């Protein structure tokens, strides 16, 4: 739904000088109207984030929570433990693989879908709406039905896979830590992680589809008609006319989807619980917070996650932000 919104729009006209009474009234009304939100967001978002930073530098556990305050023994111990442990580095790599592959598949599928539904046909509106269902459906229900379908004992996918597709034995899609090999090339990606990536693609492609459909509809027909007259084939028209106009949208989608997938906790926690080579950092943080009660270590890992995200997004924007404006 955010998709249908345009960018920032232009700022409202500045009050002219001399209208100071009106301007002053506006300013006062402005502060009055915005203050409830500012207070809520400040106390429930901004302050907690600052507090996480403080927690990351302290030895806080759930058990000694009562004693911990703002003034405590600050040290870098959590960070050195976290960065030095192979578990965290593994989780970070898993997070990267999961978010890069999930983003790529989701946008790829969304692009193909937008292209396939480009020309009007009877019932297109209904098809479009149906394709958005995976995106709006509650994550708990979606993960539950998929884990039932992928179940090795009575899952419908394994039933038809073994019967019709000639699989030797049922695949434990969500609990197999076996690495996937493509054409004999070992990918170091477990079966379960691949399942999570495909689930992410299934759940998020509608988002990319929505954005790309809106953009595609804005492409003038005349360009393509001219290209057709010049003898351009459908793939050539896509390659040289449609795709270049979609690139800025794809770039924005890449940032958005990457950020959300990188931060994602729900999907992997609900599908695999973080087992079988699928432990992403967010799930690991949860494990430290709840199961181990080590708040300091949890905070340190979450902070590293946020910092890496910020760095990656900044680098991406530096690399592609310019060319996007030029396009």
């Amino acid at each position: 739904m955010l998709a249908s919104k345009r960018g920032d729009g232009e700022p409202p006209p500045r009050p002219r000088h001399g209208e100071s009474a009106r301007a002053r009234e506006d300013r006062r009304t402005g502060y009055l109207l915005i203050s409830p939100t500012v207070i809520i967001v400040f106390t429930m978002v901004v302050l907690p984030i600052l507090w996480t930073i403080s927690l990351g530098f302290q030895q806080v556990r759930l058990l000694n929570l009562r004693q911990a305050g703002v003034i405590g023994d600050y040290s870098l111990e959590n960070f050195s433990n976290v960065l030095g442990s192979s578990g965290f580095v593994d989780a970070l790599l898993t997070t990267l693989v999961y978010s890069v592959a999930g983003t790529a598949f989701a946008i790829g599928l969304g692009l193909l879908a937008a292209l396939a539904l480009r020309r009007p046909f009877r019932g297109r509106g209904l098809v479009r709406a149906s394709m958005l269902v995976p995106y709006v459906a509650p994550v708990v229900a979606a993960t539950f039905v998929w884990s039932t379908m992928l179940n090795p004992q009575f899952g419908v996918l394994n039933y038809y896979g073994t019967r019709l597709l000639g699989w030797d034995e049922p695949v434990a899609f969500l609990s197999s830590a076996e690495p996937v090999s493509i054409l004999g090339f070992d990918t170091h990606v477990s079966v379960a992680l691949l399942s999570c990536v495909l689930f992410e693609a299934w759940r998020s492609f509608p988002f990319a589809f929505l954005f790309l459909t809106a953009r595609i509809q804005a492409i003038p027909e005349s360009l393509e008609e001219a290209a057709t007259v010049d003898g351009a084939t459908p793939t050539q028209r896509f390659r040289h006319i449609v795709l270049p106009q979609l690139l800025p949208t794809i770039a924005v989608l890449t940032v958005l989807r990457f950020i959300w997938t990188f931060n994602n906790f729900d999907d992997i926690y609900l599908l695999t619980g973080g087992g079988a080579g699928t432990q992403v950092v967010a799930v690991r943080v949860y494990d430290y917070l709840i199961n181990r009660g080590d708040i300091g270590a949890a905070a340190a890992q979450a902070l590293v996650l946020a910092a890496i995200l910020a760095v990656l997004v900044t680098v991406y924007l530096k690399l592609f932000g310019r060319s996007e404006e030029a396009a």
Partner: protein
Amino acid sequence: MSTATPGISRDSVERRLLLVIRPAFIIFLLVISLFPFYYMVLLSFRQLDSVLQDPGALWPSLGEIDLDTYKNVLASTADGGQGFLNFIKNSMLVALGTVVISLLVAIPGAYAVSRLEFFGRRQISAVFLGVYFFPAILLAIPLFVLFTRLGQRGTLTGLLVVYVAQVAAVSIYMLRNYFDTIPASLEEAAAIDGCTRLQAMRHVSLPLALPAIASNALFVFMIAWNEFLFALLFLVERRENWTVSLGLSQLAGSIEVPTTVLMAGSVILTLPIIVLFFLSERWLAGGLTAGAEKG
């Protein structure tokens, strides 16, 4: 029209291929989008032993349809059920509460950010948008600690406050974009007629923004209804306060509750969202796109 080339040109090959691939791909998309939900409904009507005997059935056999799963999942634990009726009540309370409070906060806020010139206006919008991209798990840690200390963990009120804080920022962003598309001249006319700012806002801009407010309300409702992480962190120890999402995820882990019963729970969790989505698709799409075009 393509240029005439002798034999089979690349163009005609591609066109013919697309003629086959396109409909096939559309069918593929429909199947992957809808089949899981069809399967959810199907399993919710079947009985566990028949599912285990015949896992490949794609429609229920005659006389198999069984509503006991729904009775079981809805009934309270005292009556031997799973207590989903209570979960629905909790989810409704939290989701509707989030909608009402976040709109009360966000509508004036969005209006101020869009219309009124005051110091820090731009910075505030930027900070609010940043919230949307922040790792939820990072926020989860201090809030978990805070609510544990305040003794508010396990209450629906605590969850409600967190939800409002999370969505208010996004609501402001969405609504602001809409307010930006309403011409300021309308309000200026009202001002000339002697309206104050607040009167102009209430009588001129608010009615015009109703479609955006309605779609924002739906959006917020969906977020709150679907939310899982904070419900898990805050409510897991208090079964009587579980939301539908949390209840389903918790019971899915236990072996005592049959999968078919939980499928009935999944349908109950999903149905309101799908209904709202298709309703809003129909009667809100017009208003939304109209607003977008003006901008």
